[in-house]
Protein backbone atom coordinates (compact mmCIF):
# COMPACT_ATOMS: atom_id res chain seq x y z
CA UNK A 1 0.00 0.00 0.00
CA UNK A 2 2.76 2.38 0.88
CA UNK A 3 4.36 1.81 -2.49
CA UNK A 4 1.16 2.61 -4.36
CA UNK A 5 0.07 5.58 -2.31
CA UNK A 6 3.48 7.21 -2.31
CA UNK A 7 2.80 8.95 -5.60
CA UNK A 8 -0.92 9.47 -5.25
CA UNK A 9 -2.98 12.07 -3.44
CA UNK A 10 -4.89 9.58 -1.34
CA UNK A 11 -4.85 8.55 2.25
CA UNK A 12 -5.97 5.28 3.72
CA UNK A 13 -6.61 4.98 7.40
CA UNK A 14 -6.51 1.49 8.83
CA UNK A 15 -8.18 1.42 12.21
CA UNK A 16 -7.06 -0.79 15.05
CA UNK A 17 -8.58 -0.41 18.49
CA UNK A 18 -5.54 -0.27 20.70
CA UNK A 19 -7.01 -1.92 23.76
CA UNK A 20 -8.33 -4.86 21.75
CA UNK A 21 -5.18 -6.01 19.99
CA UNK A 22 -2.15 -7.36 21.75
CA UNK A 23 1.06 -5.47 21.80
CA UNK A 24 2.87 -7.69 19.30
CA UNK A 25 0.25 -7.21 16.61
CA UNK A 26 0.11 -3.47 17.10
CA UNK A 27 3.86 -3.28 16.80
CA UNK A 28 3.90 -5.26 13.60
CA UNK A 29 1.00 -3.28 12.13
CA UNK A 30 2.61 -0.03 13.15
CA UNK A 31 5.69 -1.02 11.22
CA UNK A 32 3.60 -1.37 8.06
CA UNK A 33 2.30 2.20 8.22
CA UNK A 34 3.98 5.43 7.33
CA UNK A 35 2.24 7.43 10.00
CA UNK A 36 0.17 6.84 13.06
CA UNK A 37 -2.91 8.68 14.21
CA UNK A 38 -3.15 8.86 17.96
CA UNK A 39 -6.89 9.13 18.39
CA UNK A 40 -8.79 6.40 20.16
CA UNK A 41 -11.99 7.52 18.45
CA UNK A 42 -13.44 6.58 15.10
CA UNK A 43 -11.89 8.24 12.11
CA UNK A 44 -13.34 8.85 8.68
CA UNK A 45 -11.83 6.70 6.02
CA UNK A 46 -10.66 7.39 2.53
CA UNK A 47 -13.07 9.08 0.11
CA UNK A 48 -15.15 7.25 -2.45
CA UNK A 49 -16.64 4.94 0.11
CA UNK A 50 -13.52 2.83 0.33
CA UNK A 51 -11.76 1.87 3.51
CA UNK A 52 -11.83 -0.88 6.04
CA UNK A 53 -12.28 -0.86 9.78
CA UNK A 54 -10.99 -3.79 11.85
CA UNK A 55 -11.99 -4.02 15.48
CA UNK A 56 -11.11 -6.89 17.79
CA UNK A 57 -13.98 -8.51 19.67
CA UNK A 58 -13.75 -7.87 23.44
CA UNK A 59 -13.02 -11.50 24.26
CA UNK A 60 -10.29 -11.80 21.63
CA UNK A 61 -12.06 -14.49 19.63
CA UNK A 62 -12.47 -12.53 16.45
CA UNK A 63 -13.06 -9.27 14.63
CA UNK A 64 -15.66 -6.82 13.52
CA UNK A 65 -14.89 -6.17 9.85
CA UNK A 66 -16.62 -3.08 8.52
CA UNK A 67 -16.39 -1.17 5.27
CA UNK A 68 -14.88 -2.34 2.00
CA UNK A 69 -12.24 -5.04 1.71
CA UNK A 70 -10.28 -5.05 -1.53
CA UNK A 71 -6.69 -5.05 -2.78
CA UNK A 72 -6.03 -1.67 -1.14
CA UNK A 73 -6.89 -3.03 2.31
CA UNK A 74 -5.88 -6.68 1.93
CA UNK A 75 -2.55 -6.38 3.74
CA UNK A 76 -4.22 -4.81 6.77
CA UNK A 77 -6.86 -7.53 6.79
CA UNK A 78 -4.19 -10.19 6.53
CA UNK A 79 -2.28 -8.73 9.47
CA UNK A 80 -5.38 -8.56 11.67
CA UNK A 81 -6.49 -12.10 10.78
CA UNK A 82 -3.01 -13.51 11.33
CA UNK A 83 -3.06 -12.24 14.90
CA UNK A 84 -6.14 -14.30 15.82
CA UNK A 85 -5.27 -17.50 17.61
CA UNK A 86 -8.60 -18.69 19.03
CA UNK A 87 -9.77 -22.20 18.09
CA UNK A 88 -13.17 -20.85 17.14
CA UNK A 89 -12.88 -17.56 15.30
CA UNK A 90 -15.89 -15.26 14.98
CA UNK A 91 -16.04 -12.61 12.28
CA UNK A 92 -18.84 -10.07 12.59
CA UNK A 93 -19.63 -8.85 9.09
CA UNK A 94 -22.89 -6.90 9.29
CA UNK A 95 -20.97 -3.74 8.43
CA UNK A 96 -18.99 -5.24 5.57
CA UNK A 97 -20.17 -3.43 2.47
CA UNK A 98 -17.83 -5.05 -0.05
CA UNK A 99 -15.31 -7.88 -0.19
CA UNK A 100 -13.31 -9.11 -3.15
CA UNK A 101 -12.09 -12.63 -3.86
CA UNK A 102 -8.58 -11.91 -2.58
CA UNK A 103 -9.79 -10.73 0.83
CA UNK A 104 -12.23 -13.63 1.02
CA UNK A 105 -9.27 -15.94 0.38
CA UNK A 106 -7.56 -14.39 3.42
CA UNK A 107 -10.63 -15.18 5.51
CA UNK A 108 -11.03 -18.70 4.18
CA UNK A 109 -7.39 -19.40 5.00
CA UNK A 110 -8.48 -19.19 8.66
CA UNK A 111 -10.84 -22.11 8.21
CA UNK A 112 -8.16 -24.78 8.47
CA UNK A 113 -8.90 -27.61 10.91
CA UNK A 114 -8.78 -27.79 13.84
CA UNK A 115 -9.74 -24.14 13.73
CA UNK A 116 -13.42 -23.42 13.20
CA UNK A 117 -14.62 -20.25 11.52
CA UNK A 118 -17.97 -18.63 12.26
CA UNK A 119 -19.22 -15.80 10.06
CA UNK A 120 -21.92 -13.55 11.48
CA UNK A 121 -24.12 -11.76 8.93
CA UNK A 122 -21.95 -12.38 5.86
CA UNK A 123 -23.14 -10.33 2.87
CA UNK A 124 -25.07 -12.30 0.26
CA UNK A 125 -22.45 -11.77 -2.44
CA UNK A 126 -19.80 -13.16 -0.08
CA UNK A 127 -21.85 -16.32 0.41
CA UNK A 128 -22.24 -16.59 -3.36
CA UNK A 129 -18.45 -16.38 -3.78
CA UNK A 130 -17.92 -19.01 -1.09
CA UNK A 131 -20.33 -21.39 -2.82
CA UNK A 132 -18.58 -20.84 -6.15
CA UNK A 133 -14.99 -20.98 -4.98
CA UNK A 134 -15.12 -23.27 -1.94
CA UNK A 135 -18.09 -25.54 -2.58
CA UNK A 136 -18.87 -27.74 0.40
CA UNK A 137 -16.85 -25.60 2.81
CA UNK A 138 -17.38 -26.17 6.52
CA UNK A 139 -17.64 -22.52 7.49
CA UNK A 140 -20.51 -21.81 9.86
CA UNK A 141 -22.75 -18.90 8.93
CA UNK A 142 -25.12 -17.02 11.16
CA UNK A 143 -27.58 -14.52 9.79
CA UNK A 144 -30.57 -12.94 11.53
Amino acid sequence: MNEVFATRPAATICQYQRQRFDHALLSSVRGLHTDQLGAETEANVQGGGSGLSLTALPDGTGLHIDGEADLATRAALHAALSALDAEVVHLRLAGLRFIDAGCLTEIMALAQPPRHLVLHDPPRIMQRMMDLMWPGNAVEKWSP
Partner: protein
Amino acid sequence: MSMPATTERGEHAAWHQVLFYEDRRQYVDGVLRFVDTALDGGRPVFVAVPPANGELLRRHLDGRGEQVRLADMTRLGRNPSLIIPQIRGFIDEHPGRPVSFVGEPAWATRTPAEIAEVTRHEALINAAFDGSGAQVLCPYDIAGLAAPAVADAMRTHPELVDPAGRRQPSERYTDPRTVWADTGHLPSPPAGAEQITVARSDLGRLRSLARQIAAPLLAAAALDELLLAVTELATNSVRHGGGTATATIWATSDRVVCDVADNGSITDALAGRRRPDPDASTGRGLWLVNHLCDLVQLHSSRHGTRVRITVAPPLPAAPFSAGT
Protein backbone atom coordinates in the same frame (compact mmCIF):
# COMPACT_ATOMS: atom_id res chain seq x y z
CA MET B 1 -0.38 -20.55 -24.52
CA SER B 2 -2.09 -23.55 -23.04
CA MET B 3 -3.84 -24.35 -26.30
CA PRO B 4 -3.00 -27.96 -27.15
CA ALA B 5 -1.62 -28.96 -30.49
CA THR B 6 -3.86 -28.06 -33.37
CA THR B 7 -6.70 -30.47 -33.72
CA GLU B 8 -6.36 -32.30 -37.00
CA ARG B 9 -9.32 -32.87 -39.22
CA GLY B 10 -10.50 -36.41 -39.76
CA GLU B 11 -10.94 -39.34 -37.44
CA HIS B 12 -8.92 -37.94 -34.58
CA ALA B 13 -11.10 -34.81 -34.40
CA ALA B 14 -14.47 -36.45 -35.00
CA TRP B 15 -15.48 -36.14 -31.37
CA HIS B 16 -16.84 -32.58 -31.87
CA GLN B 17 -19.69 -32.55 -34.37
CA VAL B 18 -22.29 -30.04 -35.53
CA LEU B 19 -25.82 -31.17 -36.38
CA PHE B 20 -27.69 -28.74 -38.65
CA TYR B 21 -31.44 -29.21 -38.29
CA GLU B 22 -34.46 -27.51 -39.83
CA ASP B 23 -37.38 -28.92 -37.84
CA ARG B 24 -38.36 -30.94 -34.79
CA ARG B 25 -38.25 -34.27 -36.61
CA GLN B 26 -34.66 -33.73 -37.70
CA TYR B 27 -33.76 -32.50 -34.23
CA VAL B 28 -35.14 -35.53 -32.45
CA ASP B 29 -33.65 -37.96 -34.99
CA GLY B 30 -30.19 -36.41 -34.92
CA VAL B 31 -29.89 -35.86 -31.19
CA LEU B 32 -31.45 -39.14 -30.10
CA ARG B 33 -29.17 -41.13 -32.38
CA PHE B 34 -26.20 -39.57 -30.59
CA VAL B 35 -27.72 -40.02 -27.11
CA ASP B 36 -28.79 -43.61 -27.71
CA THR B 37 -25.38 -44.57 -29.04
CA ALA B 38 -23.76 -43.00 -25.98
CA LEU B 39 -26.10 -44.73 -23.51
CA ASP B 40 -25.63 -48.06 -25.28
CA GLY B 41 -21.91 -47.59 -24.84
CA GLY B 42 -22.34 -46.96 -21.11
CA ARG B 43 -21.29 -43.33 -21.35
CA PRO B 44 -22.64 -40.67 -18.97
CA VAL B 45 -24.72 -38.21 -21.03
CA PHE B 46 -25.22 -34.49 -20.39
CA VAL B 47 -27.67 -32.53 -22.57
CA ALA B 48 -27.80 -28.71 -22.34
CA VAL B 49 -30.27 -27.18 -24.81
CA PRO B 50 -32.94 -24.45 -24.80
CA PRO B 51 -35.91 -25.54 -22.65
CA ALA B 52 -38.42 -26.19 -25.45
CA ASN B 53 -35.94 -28.53 -27.10
CA GLY B 54 -35.20 -30.16 -23.78
CA GLU B 55 -38.90 -30.91 -23.31
CA LEU B 56 -39.07 -32.32 -26.82
CA LEU B 57 -36.16 -34.65 -26.12
CA ARG B 58 -37.55 -35.69 -22.75
CA ARG B 59 -40.79 -36.83 -24.40
CA HIS B 60 -38.89 -38.91 -26.93
CA LEU B 61 -36.39 -40.41 -24.54
CA ASP B 62 -39.18 -42.59 -23.07
CA GLY B 63 -37.75 -44.63 -20.24
CA ARG B 64 -34.17 -43.51 -20.78
CA GLY B 65 -34.66 -39.93 -19.64
CA GLU B 66 -33.46 -40.69 -16.14
CA GLN B 67 -30.10 -41.77 -17.49
CA VAL B 68 -29.54 -38.36 -19.07
CA ARG B 69 -28.74 -35.13 -17.27
CA LEU B 70 -30.83 -32.43 -18.92
CA ALA B 71 -30.11 -28.73 -18.39
CA ASP B 72 -31.53 -25.43 -19.68
CA MET B 73 -28.81 -23.93 -21.86
CA THR B 74 -30.45 -20.47 -21.79
CA ARG B 75 -29.48 -20.34 -18.10
CA LEU B 76 -26.42 -22.58 -17.84
CA GLY B 77 -24.90 -21.10 -20.99
CA ARG B 78 -26.37 -17.63 -20.98
CA ASN B 79 -22.75 -16.59 -20.67
CA PRO B 80 -21.11 -18.94 -23.21
CA SER B 81 -17.84 -18.84 -21.23
CA LEU B 82 -19.52 -20.96 -18.54
CA ILE B 83 -20.27 -23.94 -20.76
CA ILE B 84 -16.75 -25.40 -20.77
CA PRO B 85 -16.54 -25.30 -16.95
CA GLN B 86 -19.88 -27.12 -16.78
CA ILE B 87 -18.70 -29.86 -19.14
CA ARG B 88 -15.47 -30.09 -17.17
CA GLY B 89 -17.50 -30.51 -13.97
CA PHE B 90 -19.51 -33.33 -15.56
CA ILE B 91 -16.31 -35.06 -16.67
CA ASP B 92 -14.88 -34.73 -13.16
CA GLU B 93 -18.01 -36.33 -11.70
CA HIS B 94 -17.33 -39.45 -13.77
CA PRO B 95 -13.65 -40.22 -13.33
CA GLY B 96 -12.28 -42.74 -15.77
CA ARG B 97 -15.43 -42.73 -17.91
CA PRO B 98 -15.56 -40.89 -21.24
CA VAL B 99 -18.69 -38.71 -21.38
CA SER B 100 -21.03 -37.52 -24.13
CA PHE B 101 -22.35 -33.97 -24.24
CA VAL B 102 -25.09 -32.39 -26.35
CA GLY B 103 -24.69 -28.61 -26.31
CA GLU B 104 -26.94 -26.18 -28.16
CA PRO B 105 -25.38 -22.80 -27.38
CA ALA B 106 -26.91 -20.69 -30.19
CA TRP B 107 -30.53 -19.62 -30.55
CA ALA B 108 -32.33 -17.07 -32.65
CA THR B 109 -32.66 -14.26 -30.09
CA ARG B 110 -28.98 -14.24 -29.12
CA THR B 111 -27.35 -10.88 -29.89
CA PRO B 112 -24.47 -10.74 -32.42
CA ALA B 113 -22.06 -10.20 -29.51
CA GLU B 114 -23.38 -13.34 -27.81
CA ILE B 115 -23.13 -15.33 -31.04
CA ALA B 116 -19.50 -14.23 -31.40
CA GLU B 117 -18.80 -15.56 -27.90
CA VAL B 118 -20.64 -18.77 -28.77
CA THR B 119 -18.29 -19.17 -31.74
CA ARG B 120 -15.22 -18.58 -29.57
CA HIS B 121 -16.56 -21.05 -27.02
CA GLU B 122 -17.07 -23.67 -29.75
CA ALA B 123 -13.52 -23.14 -30.98
CA LEU B 124 -12.16 -23.58 -27.47
CA ILE B 125 -14.06 -26.86 -27.02
CA ASN B 126 -11.59 -28.34 -29.53
CA ALA B 127 -8.72 -27.26 -27.31
CA ALA B 128 -10.26 -27.90 -23.90
CA PHE B 129 -11.38 -31.49 -24.36
CA ASP B 130 -8.96 -32.84 -26.94
CA GLY B 131 -7.79 -36.23 -25.73
CA SER B 132 -10.39 -36.43 -22.92
CA GLY B 133 -12.45 -39.07 -24.73
CA ALA B 134 -15.48 -36.77 -24.65
CA GLN B 135 -17.96 -36.81 -27.53
CA VAL B 136 -19.68 -33.48 -28.20
CA LEU B 137 -22.68 -32.91 -30.47
CA CYS B 138 -23.88 -29.35 -31.14
CA PRO B 139 -27.30 -28.94 -32.78
CA TYR B 140 -27.74 -25.70 -34.78
CA ASP B 141 -31.16 -24.48 -35.90
CA ILE B 142 -30.48 -23.44 -39.50
CA ALA B 143 -34.11 -22.33 -39.97
CA GLY B 144 -33.92 -19.86 -37.07
CA LEU B 145 -30.30 -18.71 -36.81
CA ALA B 146 -28.76 -15.92 -38.89
CA ALA B 147 -26.37 -17.04 -41.61
CA PRO B 148 -23.14 -15.93 -39.85
CA ALA B 149 -23.88 -18.16 -36.85
CA VAL B 150 -24.22 -21.15 -39.16
CA ALA B 151 -21.10 -20.26 -41.14
CA ASP B 152 -19.13 -19.92 -37.90
CA ALA B 153 -20.29 -23.35 -36.75
CA MET B 154 -18.60 -24.82 -39.82
CA ARG B 155 -15.33 -23.18 -38.78
CA THR B 156 -15.49 -24.51 -35.24
CA HIS B 157 -16.64 -28.10 -35.75
CA PRO B 158 -14.27 -30.57 -37.38
CA GLU B 159 -17.17 -32.72 -38.52
CA LEU B 160 -20.74 -32.26 -39.77
CA VAL B 161 -23.37 -34.88 -39.09
CA ASP B 162 -26.85 -34.89 -40.65
CA PRO B 163 -30.07 -36.06 -38.97
CA ALA B 164 -29.72 -39.45 -40.65
CA GLY B 165 -26.30 -39.89 -39.09
CA ARG B 166 -24.20 -39.30 -42.20
CA ARG B 167 -20.88 -37.68 -41.33
CA GLN B 168 -18.46 -35.58 -43.31
CA PRO B 169 -15.45 -33.45 -42.39
CA SER B 170 -16.06 -29.69 -42.33
CA GLU B 171 -14.17 -28.12 -45.23
CA ARG B 172 -14.06 -24.83 -43.35
CA TYR B 173 -12.73 -26.12 -40.04
CA THR B 174 -10.22 -23.59 -38.69
CA ASP B 175 -7.54 -23.73 -36.01
CA PRO B 176 -9.19 -22.79 -32.68
CA ARG B 177 -6.51 -20.24 -31.92
CA THR B 178 -7.26 -18.43 -35.18
CA VAL B 179 -11.01 -18.41 -34.50
CA TRP B 180 -10.50 -17.19 -30.95
CA ALA B 181 -8.35 -14.33 -32.21
CA ASP B 182 -10.38 -13.22 -35.23
CA THR B 183 -13.93 -13.42 -33.85
CA GLY B 184 -15.90 -10.79 -31.96
CA HIS B 185 -14.61 -7.30 -32.67
CA LEU B 186 -15.56 -4.94 -29.80
CA PRO B 187 -17.34 -1.79 -30.98
CA SER B 188 -16.18 1.45 -29.32
CA PRO B 189 -18.04 2.47 -26.16
CA PRO B 190 -20.76 5.11 -26.76
CA ALA B 191 -19.86 8.80 -26.48
CA GLY B 192 -21.58 9.25 -23.14
CA ALA B 193 -19.72 6.45 -21.39
CA GLU B 194 -17.94 7.33 -18.14
CA GLN B 195 -14.23 6.60 -17.96
CA ILE B 196 -11.94 6.26 -14.95
CA THR B 197 -8.29 5.31 -14.53
CA VAL B 198 -7.93 2.90 -11.66
CA ALA B 199 -4.85 2.22 -9.53
CA ARG B 200 -4.83 0.16 -6.36
CA SER B 201 -6.24 2.97 -4.24
CA ASP B 202 -9.06 3.75 -6.68
CA LEU B 203 -11.03 0.52 -6.50
CA GLY B 204 -13.58 2.09 -4.17
CA ARG B 205 -14.03 5.04 -6.52
CA LEU B 206 -14.50 2.61 -9.41
CA ARG B 207 -17.29 0.89 -7.48
CA SER B 208 -18.92 4.22 -6.65
CA LEU B 209 -18.99 5.15 -10.33
CA ALA B 210 -20.31 1.75 -11.38
CA ARG B 211 -22.97 1.91 -8.68
CA GLN B 212 -24.08 5.34 -9.80
CA ILE B 213 -24.52 4.19 -13.42
CA ALA B 214 -26.01 0.79 -12.68
CA ALA B 215 -28.29 1.45 -9.71
CA PRO B 216 -31.26 2.71 -11.78
CA LEU B 217 -31.24 -0.52 -13.81
CA LEU B 218 -30.13 -3.32 -11.50
CA ALA B 219 -31.65 -4.64 -8.28
CA ALA B 220 -29.37 -5.14 -5.29
CA ALA B 221 -28.23 -8.69 -6.08
CA ALA B 222 -27.28 -7.96 -9.70
CA LEU B 223 -25.67 -4.68 -8.66
CA ASP B 224 -23.50 -6.50 -6.11
CA GLU B 225 -22.41 -8.93 -8.81
CA LEU B 226 -21.48 -6.10 -11.17
CA LEU B 227 -19.46 -4.31 -8.47
CA LEU B 228 -17.59 -7.51 -7.65
CA ALA B 229 -16.92 -8.25 -11.33
CA VAL B 230 -15.53 -4.79 -12.12
CA THR B 231 -13.38 -4.90 -8.99
CA GLU B 232 -11.95 -8.31 -9.88
CA LEU B 233 -11.11 -7.18 -13.42
CA ALA B 234 -9.50 -3.94 -12.27
CA THR B 235 -7.61 -5.85 -9.56
CA ASN B 236 -6.24 -8.18 -12.24
CA SER B 237 -5.10 -5.13 -14.19
CA VAL B 238 -3.44 -3.56 -11.17
CA ARG B 239 -1.67 -6.79 -10.24
CA HIS B 240 -0.82 -8.22 -13.65
CA GLY B 241 -1.66 -5.64 -16.31
CA GLY B 242 0.76 -2.82 -15.72
CA GLY B 243 -0.49 -1.35 -12.45
CA THR B 244 -3.54 0.52 -13.67
CA ALA B 245 -6.81 -0.21 -15.42
CA THR B 246 -8.89 2.01 -17.63
CA ALA B 247 -12.55 1.32 -16.93
CA THR B 248 -15.34 2.58 -19.18
CA ILE B 249 -18.90 2.13 -18.00
CA TRP B 250 -22.26 2.77 -19.62
CA ALA B 251 -25.86 1.68 -19.43
CA THR B 252 -28.27 0.88 -22.24
CA SER B 253 -32.02 0.55 -21.87
CA ASP B 254 -31.71 -2.97 -20.48
CA ARG B 255 -28.13 -3.68 -19.42
CA VAL B 256 -24.96 -2.27 -17.92
CA VAL B 257 -21.70 -2.66 -19.80
CA CYS B 258 -18.19 -2.12 -18.48
CA ASP B 259 -14.85 -2.33 -20.30
CA VAL B 260 -11.70 -2.85 -18.28
CA ALA B 261 -8.54 -2.36 -20.33
CA ASP B 262 -4.86 -2.56 -19.45
CA ASN B 263 -1.43 -3.05 -21.02
CA GLY B 264 -1.06 -6.73 -20.14
CA SER B 265 -1.50 -9.73 -22.41
CA ILE B 266 -3.54 -12.82 -21.71
CA THR B 267 -2.17 -15.60 -23.87
CA ASP B 268 -4.14 -18.44 -22.30
CA ALA B 269 -7.32 -18.70 -24.35
CA LEU B 270 -8.89 -20.87 -21.65
CA ALA B 271 -8.26 -18.32 -18.88
CA GLY B 272 -11.39 -18.04 -16.76
CA ARG B 273 -12.79 -21.35 -18.00
CA ARG B 274 -10.99 -23.61 -15.54
CA ARG B 275 -11.95 -23.94 -11.90
CA PRO B 276 -9.09 -22.34 -10.00
CA ASP B 277 -7.31 -24.03 -7.15
CA PRO B 278 -8.96 -22.36 -4.14
CA ASP B 279 -5.61 -21.78 -2.52
CA ALA B 280 -3.95 -20.32 -5.61
CA SER B 281 -3.31 -16.61 -5.43
CA THR B 282 -4.13 -16.03 -9.10
CA GLY B 283 -6.42 -17.38 -11.77
CA ARG B 284 -9.71 -16.98 -10.00
CA GLY B 285 -10.65 -13.42 -11.06
CA LEU B 286 -11.78 -14.20 -14.60
CA TRP B 287 -13.38 -17.45 -13.52
CA LEU B 288 -15.44 -15.59 -10.96
CA VAL B 289 -16.29 -12.81 -13.42
CA ASN B 290 -17.64 -15.43 -15.83
CA HIS B 291 -20.04 -16.59 -13.12
CA LEU B 292 -21.18 -13.07 -12.25
CA CYS B 293 -21.87 -11.65 -15.70
CA ASP B 294 -24.28 -12.38 -18.54
CA LEU B 295 -21.62 -11.91 -21.17
CA VAL B 296 -17.83 -11.65 -20.97
CA GLN B 297 -15.84 -10.66 -24.07
CA LEU B 298 -12.10 -10.95 -23.56
CA HIS B 299 -9.82 -9.57 -26.25
CA SER B 300 -6.10 -9.63 -25.78
CA SER B 301 -3.07 -9.11 -27.96
CA ARG B 302 0.51 -8.14 -27.32
CA HIS B 303 -0.69 -4.52 -27.28
CA GLY B 304 -3.04 -4.98 -24.36
CA THR B 305 -6.17 -6.58 -22.99
CA ARG B 306 -9.77 -5.41 -22.93
CA VAL B 307 -12.49 -7.31 -21.12
CA ARG B 308 -16.08 -6.20 -21.73
CA ILE B 309 -18.68 -7.43 -19.28
CA THR B 310 -22.45 -7.14 -19.54
CA VAL B 311 -24.84 -7.47 -16.62
CA ALA B 312 -28.60 -7.42 -17.19
CA PRO B 313 -31.51 -7.75 -14.79
CA PRO B 314 -32.26 -11.44 -14.10
CA LEU B 315 -34.24 -13.49 -16.59
CA PRO B 316 -38.00 -13.29 -16.11
CA ALA B 317 -39.68 -16.19 -14.34
CA ALA B 318 -40.87 -17.73 -17.59
CA PRO B 319 -37.63 -18.45 -19.43
CA PHE B 320 -37.21 -17.83 -23.10
CA SER B 321 -37.83 -20.93 -25.20
CA ALA B 322 -36.11 -21.49 -28.51
CA GLY B 323 -38.49 -22.22 -31.33
CA THR B 324 -38.09 -25.47 -33.14
